[in-house]
Each structure stands twice: as C-alpha cells, then as structure tokens.
C-alpha cells in the first residue's frame, strides 16, 4: 500500500513534518506544538465545567417529545454520550444513527443495544444518497478528506432531523481532541481554519466547488459553516458534547458502557479502538498518501498536548492497521468504476 514518503514525527505530539502546514524545527518539535506552547504561556482558556453543561441542558430539559438528539455512530464516545444524557443527566434523548452504506454492522448493533438498554427511542436512517459523491471524489483523485464532505452531509441531516422532531439540542460524542471551544462549536467541532487543517481544508473546498456542475449534488453545502447556517434558518439547535465538560478519559467511560449497555469494539477500524465506517479506510489512506497524516492525528496530537493520551498510546492507535485488501473491499462497495 503506497502511503507516500516516510516523514519525521514531532517529538512531543504525533504530527509529521508536512510543510507548509506542519513544520518540525531543529529540536524536532512541530510548529503546532510551538504555537500551542506560546498560547498556553499567555493564558489558559477557561475550562468548560460540567456545571456549565448542566446549565445548558436545563434550558432545554423537558421541551418537546425529546429534548435532545444524540448522534450515535456506535463508537465509544457517542455511546457514552447517549448513556450520559439518559442516565447521568436524566434527559429524554432521541438516538439518531445513519448508515450511508458503509457503516459496520457491529457499530449498528452497538447503537441498537445501547438504545434498548437505556430505553431510548432510536431513529435509524439508511440512505445511498451520498454514495455517488464519495465515488466522484475517489474517481477525481482529489486530495480532499472524504470525512469532511461526509461530516457536512451528516450535520445537515442531523439538523434536519432535529427540525423535524423539533429538538432544541444536538448531542455529539466529540472528544476534547476535537475542537471544544464555544466559538468552534457552531462550526460543529472541526476547526478547518486551524493551521494543521489548512491544506486538507483547501482540498476539500476545491472538491466541493466541482459539485456545482453536478446536477445531483449542486445544492450540497460548500462548507460546514454554510451547512449550519442553512440548517439554522429552519431550526435553531445547540450542538454540544458532554466529553468537553467532563474530567474523564476514554477508558473511564468505556468500562461503564461495556457494563451498562453492552458496548463492544468493532473488529476492524482505524484508528485502533475506534468504530469508524469502512469508507474511513479510504479516507485515511488518501490523507496519509497526500499529507502524511489524518484528522485523527490532529485530534490525538491535541489530546497528547492536553495530557489526555500519552504520545505512545496515540502512536500505537495511529499505526496503519489495514491493507490493500481492505481498501479493495471498500472500493468494491463504491461500485466498479471507482477502481
């Protein structure tokens, strides 16, 4: 499997030398770590406290048939989010899962089991509507990150579901490694303006521009901001993740959801220990090939800097754990011409 040239990795985090976005200095420390170091020495951001989260929940508690819509992927973080919303915060959530044709059955089973165990309603949405978009992206040879347009699509879909059921609160399972600052929440977790996302973001934007000529996808939002802005014209919903507010590491809640809702890890996913869809393998391969890192590297690098993961844990999780066969299988599902 061609993953591009070997790149030196930052001594502090897990990001590789990938100019112009990420540059390692003479000490082997990346420009992102250096920037973070300077920022922290000025003043730390005020922490997000669980009491802040509860205060936000209280605004919406008991409003409507369901007071929050929980985006479930079947992974540990979103399953824990669903668990917390029901048990810890005593909300009345509607669990929402989509399958764009590439979700793993184990993940779907995780969501069903959790919904059953917690006694929450589950909305399962199966569609082939974006398969053509993914195929187009692969065929075009774009450097864009497959997960970016997918995120834009599923956030649009989630807002649509929240509007349909008049739910004021959308709960995601995003970790502290994903953007967790109030200003960034509105952009739905991924800060595409961050330097480490610059080239990836530009590639995605360039690809999305090409959709304007495609009759099937010409209305596809050109960015997450546009998707959220459009959605908010119809329905205002706040997007939050409990993980941003809790002082707990993943292993603390994995144990709980294993015990309480029968959560199981899926057999094959990247990064190790995650529960991502099979299309993700293609996305990861493409990003590694072009940039030498993925958005998971960015997330985990941030968690390493925050002390939520050790560098060694992150490096282990980020080791490539799939091969050509897996990629071939996914491409097959995108239909033959994609090869």
């Amino acid at each position, binding site marked *: 499997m061609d993953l591009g040239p070997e790149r030196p990795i930052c001594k502090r985090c897990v990001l590789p030398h990938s100019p112009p976005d990420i540059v390692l200095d003479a000490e082997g420390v990346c420009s992102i770590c250096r920037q973070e170091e300077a920022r922290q020495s000025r003043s730390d951001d005020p*922490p997000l*406290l*669980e*009491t802040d989260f*509860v*205060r*936000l929940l*209280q*605004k919406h508690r008991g409003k409507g048939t369901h007071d929050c819509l929980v985006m479930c992927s079947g992974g540990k973080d979103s399953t824990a989010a669903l668990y917390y919303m029901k048990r*810890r*915060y*005593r909300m009345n959530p509607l669990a929402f899962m989509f399958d764009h044709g590439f979700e793993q059955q184990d993940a779907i089973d995780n969501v069903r089991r959790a919904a059953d165990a917690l006694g929450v309603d589950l909305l399962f949405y199966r569609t082939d509507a974006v398969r053509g978009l993914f195929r187009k992206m692969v065929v075009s040879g774009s450097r864009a990150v497959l997960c970016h347009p997918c995120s834009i699509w599923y956030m649009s879909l989630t807002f649509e579901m929240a509007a349909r059921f008049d739910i004021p609160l959308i709960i995601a399972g995003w970790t502290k490694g994903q953007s967790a600052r109030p200003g960034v929440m509105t952009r739905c977790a991924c800060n595409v303006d961050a330097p480490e996302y610059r080239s990836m973001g530009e590639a995605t934007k360039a690809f999305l521009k090409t959709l304007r000529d495609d009759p099937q996808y010409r209305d596809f939002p050109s960015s997450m901001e546009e998707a959220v802005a459009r959605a908010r014209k119809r329905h205002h919903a706040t997007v939050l993740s409990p993980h941003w507010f*809790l*002082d707990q*590491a993943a*292993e*603390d809640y994995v144990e709980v959801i294993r015990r309480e809702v029968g959560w199981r890890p899926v057999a094959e996913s990247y990064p190790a220990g995650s529960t991502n869809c099979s299309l993700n393998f293609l996305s990861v391969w493409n990003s590694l090939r072009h940039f030498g890192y993925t958005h998971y590297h960015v997330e985990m690098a941030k968690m*390493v800097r925050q*002390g*939520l*993961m*050790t*560098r*060694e*844990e992150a490096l282990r999780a980020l080791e490539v754990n799939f091969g050509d066969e897996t990629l071939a299988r996914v491409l097959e599902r995108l239909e033959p011409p994609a090869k």
Partner: protein
Amino acid sequence: MTVAGLSAFYHDSAACVAGNGGLLVAAQEERLDRVKGSAAFPGRALDACLQAAGITIMDVDEIAFYEKPFLKFERMLADHLRAFPFSYASFRRTMPAWLGERLVLPLVLRRNLGWERPVRFVTHHLAHAASAFLVSPFEEAAVLTVDGVGEWTTTAWGIGRGTSIEIREEIRYPDSLGLLYTAVTTWLGFEANRGEGKVMALGGFGRPVLLDRLRQVAGLRPDGSFRLDQSFFRFERGGVMWSPRFEREFGPPRVPGSDLGERYLDMAASLQALLEEAMLALARHVHERTGLRRLCMAGGVALNCAANGRILEETPFQEVFVQPAAGDAGAALGAAAVIRHCVHGLPREVVMRDAFLGPEYPVSRMRRALAARGLPTTEVPPEEMQRRVADRIASGAVVGWFQGRMEFGPRALGHRSILADPRNPAMKDILNARVKHREPFRPYGASVLAEETGAWFERDTESPFMLFAVRVRPEQRSRVPSALHVDGTCRHQTVTPESDPLYHGLIRQFHGLTGVPMVINTSFNDNNEPIVCTPEDAVACFLKNDLDVLALGPFLVEKGPPETASP
C-alpha cells in the same frame, strides 16, 4: 438530602458537597484555578466536588452560603460612612463586586449554574462553629470561633449538642483579634490573609517586650474579651489597617522584603504572646461558662498552632478539635452542615478523622501526566514504594509525595506533601533553597507515627491535622533539628495506620532505617503557589523545583542528571 456549601468573594473560596450516607467532598478554588487564596466564585471547586461525588448539580437540593451578605454589606456601609471622605476610594473600588456578585448571589448562581432551587445563607461564625463541631467526634462540646470578621461578629462561643449549635456570646466588629493580628502582620511587611503564619513563626525569634503596650491597645480583659483602642487602627477605610498613632507608638512599618530588625522581631513576639494570652483567656472563660471538657475551634485564628498548642496544654479542656480547614474555606463545609443538620435535623454521619476530602485522580491520568513530560511510568508495589522512598529520604533526598484524595485546608497531610529527613540540620536550608523558596525563619512541620508520639513529644495527643505546636522532648531535640522551631516546638501531624496506611508504612520504614519515627512534611508547592492538585501540577512542580524523587500514586520517579530529567 444533598447540600452544596460555598464560600467566596473574600479569600479562600471553596466548595463542599455533603449528602446522605456520609458523602462529604470539599475543595478550595485556589487548587483548581491556581491562584493562591483565590477569591473567585468556586465554580471549578464545585465542579470537582460534584464529579468526585459522582453526582451533578441536579442532584443538589440546596446551596448554602457561608455568610449573610446583606449583614456584611450593612457593616461595610456603616464603615464607609463613618470614615467618609477617606473611605471614598475604597467604596468605589469595592462597590462593583458587592453589586455584581456578593449581594446578588442567587443571580450569580443562576448565571453560573442555572440554579433555581433554594439558596440558604448561614451567619459566618455559625458556619465556622458548625465546620468544627458537626464533624467532630464529640456529641457535646463547647465551640469557640475567632477570625477577622464575619458579618459583624469577630469572636463567638457557644455549645454544640447533637445536631444543634447555640451561640451564647459574641464580640463584634471592630473589636477583632483577627483584624488586630492582620493589621500588625501588614505593619510587619507581610501580606494580609497570607502572612499571619509567618508572623507566628517569627514570634519565636523576638522578645515580647511590647506585650504590655499591645495589651492596652487590645483592651484585653481577664475573661478574654477585648475592646481594641480604635485610635490605633483604620479598619474602616479599606486601605492601610493601622493609624498614624500606631506608627507614633511603634514606629514606621517594615518595608516588605527588607531586613527583619530587632524591633520587628519583638513586635512579632509580642503580638503572638498577646494572641496566645487572649486565646487562653477566651478558652478558660468558655470552659468556666460551659463546664464542658471538650472544645471545638474554627475561624482563621484557630489556624494559629502555637496558640492551639497552649490551649491544649494550659486550659482545663481535655480534648480540643480544630477543623483542618479552620479558615474561610472550611466555612463552606460548615454552611452545608448547618443546613443539613441544624435546619433539616438530619443525623450527623461524618467524623472528620482525616482531611482527605478533595478529588483524587486515576492511575491512568498519573501515567499520562508522567509520560507527557517524558518521565518513566513504572509502577511500584506499595511496600516497595514505602521502602525505596524511606531509603531515599534517609539518604538526604527531597521527595514529592502525591497520593489519593487531596487535603481540604491549608495543610498538606501526606497526600500532597514534600517529605525530607528531619535529622539533617541543613535540611531546612536545603528545602528553602532548592524547593520552597520561603523565608528562613519559618519552621517545617513533621509527620510522626502516632504510636511514637509520646516518646518524642511532651504531649501524647492525637494531632492528625498539624494544628498544634507541641514541645519536642528535650532529649530528642538534637535528633530532629530540622523539624524544630526555635522555641523547641514542632508542628506535628500524628499518622495512624487506619487514617493513612501507605503514609504510615513509609514513616515506619523510615523509623526502621533511622530510629526516628518522623519525616519533615511540608506542602507540595513552591512558595506563593497553591498546593498541587492534579498529577499534572505535581509533575510540573517536580520538574520546576529541585526535588529528587516523585512518588505519584504507584509511580516512582527519581531525577537523574539534568539532561535526562528535563521534559
């Protein structure tokens, strides 16, 4: 029923969560926001307490505040009016805080917590009294509270029985031992609310030649009551606390950081002697009026371990319980206790036998904190940890010791401590130069095996909170020079296997190696920084300061040569 107690907006903000089944969690805001003596709304402390208790703010039924803000505001207004126009600057400076926070606590709680349920206000000295009596081992006891000033009260005593506390007598502002002590502390060039402990230590180096004159200033009476001659003070103006007359009588104030001349040492000694005299008289008076054998004490002045030691030795009280967080932080706990027990009549379920009421952190987080700074993460079994740490202390190493739940109150008591060998006469200087960077006259406390206390101290009394200065037996003094104050006393903490098996085992190992059953125990922090709270704080303090060893939960890290020790 679960009650959250809060103290805030003056100094030592804190939060406490108290509930059924013995639930009691408490933490000071300074440990979390890393601002020494933080006066901020204790949002982080409350959050940490709730998460440590495994509940959310939704599970809290009532919030109790540690004072009645309108009464305090009344005093503040009266003060400013009396001192107008000199008080104008202070009035302008403090008014926004009053209008924005202190007088509108329910709004602050709504804004910060979305809180819509009852908020209860407990008078400050009742909160102090409850913080001591309601968690003491006593079913009935006299209670004495002494601090700067609450709403109007500066000193109070009463009787605690079961779940009730009756305040019998009080002394009101501006007559205040606490304010007197703080005023002279600032005259001596130390910071108000932070330098009082330094003055207490400094007292040992001077002669109490000014005691008679201070007695007159304080208007001290035989029953312990007092009426300060206000012409010596300027409490009401909000700036310098002493008047020109004080300067005429005792000379100009010391410039902070300048040499501590004889005049200042004598003033410190005289002030400390006055305080001890007043506290002894007060305690004797309370005993006389109550006839009770047990005494509970709280309030900032109750942190004066030299005075506490004398109360223990020289008054008829046979047992004295001083709350480890005797200052305003502890009043958060007291306010919650008043609401649970005195107001709602719930039975007392907690006896505070240790001060480990704060949050604790999982081993996984400790491992990450070490790994993030490039430090090794090899786990060591408890017995080996005790043996190796004891061995390193005996060889002269300075050890950062971070274990379990954080202490509540100003003292590190073996969970967030720096440990060292008391036998080494140079250890005090080593600690001051390498780690603590504090004034050379300040003594270090020690943790001693409870079962050995009688052989080493003149009074064989349990002292789990390091709040009594007790004389070391003369024949033992030469063996623990670095744990001794100049007057031959030591601020000691007695450690039992029940209260802290790991720490007890460590000292026992040290005893086995050296024949000395105590180690120097000082707080795990640099001078003027709050005590470490999280594993990350501990690792940062370990790397920043010249500590030799870090025992972080089950991990033992020994500093190598500088190039390998840096992150």
